[in-house]
């Protein structure tokens, strides 16, 4: 009896603590660790997906876009409260939120926003009309809202020192390039002051260092490989996004694999499942399409199973030069995956030499799928993969499928996996609800009362 009474009291105390923890609390510094070590607070050009995500997350805390896109691909108000377009989508009008101020205290007037957007898009005509602004183009812009929601279209200015000045929940307090970024709460944020007083981001920390720091409660939020979800058994809360990255083989125009049959055969020879289950430790999804299934719903139409028999039939009679397979050495999994692909290629007598030197005939690459809007995502992916821009004849799924199919039928790109990104939060971080597309929302988190 005494033992049962003890257990009851212990459970009651835990429930009480949990109740206390759910109550929002202002103050404290959220400690974050990131892999990338940017020397400027901009979206990187040619960086790794991790660099992109890190920059996008930082910018999303500093600046706002006109609109946001949810996981269903629908636009949500941000700096723009409402919008409308003409019938053919060539002219869009946005009604802007009033009273918004930049971190430097200046008002985020329509004219300022017009100037910012106009400078970024020379093919647009951006005008101000009272509290609204209009965006016009000679060609239809059905995906304009998704475009405006991309991190590159965040509304921000640059200070004299080149630091971003936005309207977001946090402002830049200190930036030591490549080492440390301190953000302070924006007291005048249009969305309301964030709970945390500050966010301290340590840059250039490896995943191993991040994991150790989280384990030792020296940080509150880290990046983590998605496969850590399966291995997670501690107090850390690991959240994985929807698959927002694509791993694929890309054949550059200079590749010796000029014969499309070789490329198609190689696509058929790759056994994605063992790679996903072993090397990716179950994370992600085998893919034969550019866009993930959650975005389109049709990716299952593209078969991911290896078919060596069919590959050999396709390959029959074609010239099979020895190809050099390159990969991104910054990606810790890329080398093993590349070697596995080379092994698969041996099955059909295609020689893939995994090497980082020389001119690559095929590259194992990982790109970001930056938008929840499928059409925008396909365009961005095609651009990133060096493919021709997709021809979208409409907004329907069929149009999207036809366009993607046309791109893939060239066999210049072999999609392999759709991969999520993941974060792990420490126990003292409360109300941690990362977006399903990998974005963070640190303005809504608070810290436990007993934390420093």
């Amino acid at each position: 009896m005494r033992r049962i009474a003890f257990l009851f009291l212990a459970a009651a105390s835990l429930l009480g603590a949990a109740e206390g923890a759910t109550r929002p609390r202002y103050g404290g510094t959220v400690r974050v660790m990131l892999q990338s070590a940017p020397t400027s607070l901009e979206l990187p050009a040619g960086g790794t997906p991790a660099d992109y995500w890190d920059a996008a997350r930082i910018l999303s805390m500093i600046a706002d876009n006109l609109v946001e896109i949810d996981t269903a691909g629908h636009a949500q108000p941000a700096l723009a409260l409402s919008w409308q377009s003409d019938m053919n989508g060539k002219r869009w009008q946005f009604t802007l939120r009033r009273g918004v101020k930049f971190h430097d205290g200046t008002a985020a007037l329509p004219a300022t926003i017009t100037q910012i957007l106009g400078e970024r898009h020379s093919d647009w005509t951006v005008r101000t009309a009272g509290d609204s602004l209009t965006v016009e183009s000679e060609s239809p812009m059905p995906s304009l809202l998704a475009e405006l929601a991309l991190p590159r279209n965040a509304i921000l200015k640059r200070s004299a020192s080149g630091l971003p000045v936005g309207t977001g929940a946090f402002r830049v307090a200190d930036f030591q390039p490549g080492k440390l970024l301190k953000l302070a709460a924006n007291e005048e944020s249009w969305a309301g002051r964030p709970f945390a007083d500050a966010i301290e981001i340590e840059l250039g920390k490896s995943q191993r260092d991040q994991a150790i720091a989280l384990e030792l409660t020296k940080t509150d939020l880290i990046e983590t490989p998605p496969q850590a979800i399966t291995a997670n058994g501690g107090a850390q809360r690991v959240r994985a996004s929807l698959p927002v990255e694509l791993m694929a083989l890309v054949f550059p125009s200079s590749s010796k694999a000029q014969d499309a049959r070789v490329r198609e055969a190689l696509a058929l020879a790759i056994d994605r499942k063992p790679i996903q289950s072993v090397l990716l430790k179950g994370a992600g999804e085998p893919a034969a399409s550019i866009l993930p299934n959650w975005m389109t719903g049709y990716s299952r139409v593209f078969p991911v199973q290896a078919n060596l028999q069919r590959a050999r039939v396709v390959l029959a009679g074609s010239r099979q030069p020895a190809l050099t397979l390159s990969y991104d050495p910054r990606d810790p999994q890329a080398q093993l995956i590349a070697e596995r692909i080379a092994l698969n290629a041996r099955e059909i007598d295609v020689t893939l030499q995994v090497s980082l030197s020389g001119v690559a005939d095929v590259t194992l690459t990982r790109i970001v799928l930056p938008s929840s809007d499928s059409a925008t995502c396909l365009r961005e992916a095609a651009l990133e993969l060096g493919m021709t821009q997709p021809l979208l004849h409409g907004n329907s799924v069929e149009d999207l499928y036809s366009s993607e199919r046309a791109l893939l039928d060239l066999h210049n790109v072999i999609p392999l996996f759709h991969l999520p990104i993941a974060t792990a939060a420490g126990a003292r971080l409360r109300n941690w609800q990362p977006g399903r597309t990998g974005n963070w929302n640190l303005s809504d988190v608070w810290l436990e009362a007993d934390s420093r």
Partner: protein
Amino acid sequence: MRFRQKLLLIFALTVFLCVAVISASVWNSMQRSFEHANDDRANSVAAQFRSEFQRRGDEVARKVEAAAASESVQRIALEINRGAVDSGGYVSEARNLAGQQHLDFLELVDHQGTILSSAQWQAKFGYPEPAIPSSIASAGAFLKREELPSGSTLGLFAIRAAGVGEQPLYAIGGERLDQGFLSTLDIPAGTRVMLYQNLDANWNPKSLLDLNGAAAGADKLAPLVEQVRRSGKEARSVIRWTSDSSDAESFHAMPLAGPNQQAMGVLLVGSSRRPLVELQKQIVSAAMLVGGTGILVAILVSLWFAARVTKPVVSLADAARRVAAGDLYAKVNVESSDELGELAAAFNRMTEDLLQQKERTLQAERVAAWRELARRLAHELKNPLFPLQVTVENLIRAKEKAPEMFEEVFREGTATLLAEVNNLKTIIGRFSEFSRMPQPQRKATQLNEIVTSVLRVFHAQLKEKSQIVVRTELEPDLPMISADPDLLHRALSNLILNAIDALPQGGEIIVQSKSFANRVELSVSDTGSGLTPEECGRLFTPYYTTKQHGTGQGLAIVQSVVSDHGGRMSVESTKQGGTTFRIELPR
């Protein structure tokens, strides 16, 4: 070639041959010794390699055994037997274990031969491992070709099973057999080791490794390696890297067999031939020095010996030459009692006999000459004496029987007596003149001019005898000689006169002049009846004549003139074939 020179040459050749034979013998012996030493060295390295191979094999087997007995492998084996196979959890196990055990290769393979984890090729999980005979799972190390992402390589492997449950888990581990392995061998100086990894169907020069990686000039070793690859047996060859023979190396190639006895590799032990070549050069130099010295000494000794041996022969030859030159008093002083001594004694006896014979001949000739002289004198003197006798008898008879006619007879008789006395004087004068032949008064003389002059003198006489035709064949550019033209004129006159006398029935006289390198030649030929050999032999004897009224002095005078000019005279004649007198005078 002189006898002494021949002896000298024979001695020198004998010494040279002896030196050559000894040098060749030493050279062959040395070469065999070197080859033997080279073989010993190669065999030593080969034995060392085998020992090192065995040791490393044992070491590999021990490491693999340790890996198989490790906690992680035992755990994996246990999980497999429980049916829970998750390759994702094992993919790095082999690499970690290989690192712990310092193995280059390690794979964990389940009982179906599927790779669960590979250290050398992590991405190879799920692929089948080529079948390994179960019998070697507990045996020692073996050679095996291993596929790697960067290509194939050769390794020394061992297999051990993790003894957990019914389904065994095999640990297949090994170490590279490459230049790193070669660098662990203790190689004698002047020797190097190379390893050919027999990974391709055809010869691949990149598979030939030395201590620095891919061996340079590998293609020169291709035939040797190919021979070993095909036959599976050891082979040897000498490889010449450059035109310099001292850069050559002797290679001993040994096959390295895999578990199925196929040649997985070829070990090449190379020994520099520089010591041999340098030794050869030293021996050749020494042989040449010794040979040259020997030949020189042999020449000196041969000179002394040949001189000693040939001295009697040379004396004999000198004596023979003197005898040939007419000195029959030549003697050979030979004190030895051998064959040469007998030969010298015989020679001396021969010269004494010849001298005696010559003296007898001279005496006989002298007697014959006196007889001939007496005969000639008698003949010459008899003719004028008979008229003298008759005249004196007539004077006596006239005094006694017809005194009145005595005065007339006396006058006629005294005239006859005076004429005959003068005749006797003339005869005596001719004989006296021959004995008083003068010495030549030399001056530059053109022989053709003398011929022309003599023929001009005989022109009238020859004209009377119209049946004799004179033909001259004179060399136009006949060189001048130093001679007495008057004596030559007289000698040639005698020859022309003889030729005229030899042609009582007419014929042709041919006078020729020719020049040679060291002499000029003048010949007078006739187409007369010719002479017998006996007549030719005695022709130049004074007072010997074949003519009815000759004094026998003409040809003797000619020979005397020619001899006084240092020349030589000869006659060629055949019966009914004419006679040719040839005079040779030095230039």
